[in-house]
């Protein structure tokens, strides 16, 4: 039985519907990350599980039990907030122990558990300080400790790292991952940062406009995006999306500026325009299509070349080893099997592409 279930969950705020029937299962011990742009409803979903928002329709279940009308404190889950929400007038020790104090855990046991959690998070030195005297990273750790100390069934993280600088964020990410590997508590992590999402998740859920676009392992979601939205959201820079036209018989596709490709598998239905997707790192310098260079970005571990392709730019990643100068035009090559096809509504098509035989022989 999945630990957490969302069953056709809807949420309406004063007549505006922000979640349109979201269904999602999260297995016991999984680390699920919900990724999406701001306003997609990912935080709302999390807060409904926490019991901080009412469920407008559908059902939220924990361990098979319907939770819609259960008070937040009886759901046995802990949450780490974006701004940490530490009690400013309490010391670190009091902050950590507050939930236990409310639960009437005896003083000695409370002290022991605070000490234990503080040791796990390297907070032992600062138990007597107040949140105002801590750095951002330390506050973040206190917020985590406050969640851990209750030994909850599920951890909820609401963009907990977005107030930290880049270096600390990487560090805390690793700490969260390590903690999860050690304790194995089911976790639900909401973020708009795709690097966090990719690295932390063993189950990645991409949301957009109140719907789930795709759920799967990070690798699946990255390599086989279920929609043009997912393809365009994941990856830095994201996948290039280029207009494409099917031929009359549906056996080939004309991709703007990149040329014509043969469709493998069933013929394309209809003649509606399509979208072709190509990840920047899947193309490289080589004999193929020559396009005018618009701009070159130095990344240190490679160079990002933006090529003009009709009225849009196509990004191509040159690896670190390729130090040859980039002139006005760049000739690029790529494995046509890497090209993805999406219908005009954004849904991914199963058909794969290969180069037209004539061209490869030439």
């Amino acid at each position, binding site marked *: 039985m999945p630990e957490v279930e969302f069953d056709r969950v809807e949420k309406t705020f004063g007549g505006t519907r922000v979640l349109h029937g979201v269904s999602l299962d999260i297995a016991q011990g999984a680390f699920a990350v919900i990724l999406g742009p701001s306003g997609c409803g990912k935080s709302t979903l999390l807060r409904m599980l*926490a*019991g901080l928002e009412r469920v407008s329709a559908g059902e939220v279940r924990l361990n098979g039990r319907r939770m819609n009308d259960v008070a937040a404190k009886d759901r046995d889950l802990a*949450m780490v907030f974006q701004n940490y929400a530490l009690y400013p007038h309490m010391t670190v020790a009091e902050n950590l122990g507050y*939930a236990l104090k*409310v639960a009437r855990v005896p003083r000695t046991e409370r002290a022991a558990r605070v000490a234990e959690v503080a040791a796990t998070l390297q907070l032992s030195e600062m138990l007597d300080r107040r949140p*105002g005297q801590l750095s951002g990273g330390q506050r973040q750790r206190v917020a985590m400790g406050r969640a851990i100390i*209750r030994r909850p069934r599920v951890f909820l993280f609401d963009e907990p790292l977005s107030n930290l600088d880049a270096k600390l964020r990487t560090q805390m990410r690793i700490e969260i991952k390590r903690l999860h590997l050690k304790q194995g508590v089911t976790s639900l992590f909401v973020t708009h940062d795709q690097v966090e999402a990719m690295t932390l998740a063993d189950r990645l859920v991409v949301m957009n406009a109140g719907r789930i676009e795709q759920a799967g392992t990070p690798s699946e979601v990255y390599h086989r995006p279920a929609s043009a939205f997912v393809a365009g959201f994941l990856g830095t820079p994201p996948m290039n999306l280029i207009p494409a036209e099917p031929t009359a018989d549906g056996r080939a596709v004309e991709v703007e500026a990149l040329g014509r490709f043969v469709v493998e598998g069933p013929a394309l239905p209809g003649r509606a325009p399509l979208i072709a997707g190509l990840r920047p790192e899947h193309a490289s310098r080589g004999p193929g299509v020559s396009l005018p260079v618009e701009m070159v970005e130095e990344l240190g571990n490679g160079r990002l070349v933006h090529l003009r392709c009709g009225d849009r730019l196509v990004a191509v990643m040159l690896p670190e080893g390729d130090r040859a100068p980039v002139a006005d035009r760049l000739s690029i090559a790529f494995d046509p099997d890497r090209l993805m096809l999406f219908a005009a509504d954004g849904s991914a098509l199963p058909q794969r592409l290969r180069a037209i035989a004539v061209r490869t022989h030439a």
Partner: protein
Amino acid sequence: MIENTRVLNIVTHAILIAALLVMCFPLYVLAVTATLPYERLGEVPKPLVPDTHLTANIREAWVRGNFGIYFLNSLVTATLITLGKIALATITAFALVYFRFPGRTLAFWAIFITLMLPLEVRIVPTYEVVANALLPAQQILEWTGMTWLIGALSGVEVALQWNMINSYWGLTLPLIATATGTFLFRQFYLTVPDELAEAAKLDGAGPMRFFLDVLLPLSRTNIAALAVIMFVAGWNQYLWPLLVTTGPDYRTLTLGLTFLAPDADAVGDWNVTLAGALIVMLPPVLVVVLAQRWFVKGLVNAEK
């Protein structure tokens, strides 16, 4: 723009010091007069150097003015007003900010309107209520015909009566039931992040627990500020105690002072009267001075 030039500093300080002297001079004269013996009261020009009769004058004022009981009454009244006001203000603001209940907007505006109606404006109806706090209930019973019904059925005449004249309740309750403090705390609670309430909810704390463990400790500087304001205001009340007390038992110190003032045809021993005024002034001054140290402490410890 902040100006910081030497000349300007000197000029502004000179103005401030001059204003301070103008304000303090009458108080100084009061203090000096309180130290004079009766014989020196008529001296012209007025003596501006303290004499040695301060303790004698104070003792005389204390005994003749019956200050022992009045002082206690003032202390009890001002303290009750302060505590009652803080309790009422914090809890009503909590209800207004953190709960969505039917009639919330109505309650908000009802409280808001009392801001525009200070005690002096509604003194007659307030007096009527204090004279019989059950009067509204009695009215409702009469309008609905309940008194007639009960009278006809059982022969008992219903006349509800709860008189608060000449009691600490009468002295304090009408002054507690105003909205100023409620708004002070409402504004403060609105600045407390929602996440704190949510975190407390997930930590298992109910609303009252959150109120006592989180909100009240966070508002301690506001509570100190309100306490000072309310204590001084309560201590200085004059009109209301004059109305609701009819004998010496519940008179407050401010009233006692007026009884100490000499009548037109009596011996004008103003040195004793002003010594009494010193006694009346002392507690509020002490509260302000002591609480000021508290404020500074609160401000220095302010958390981000």
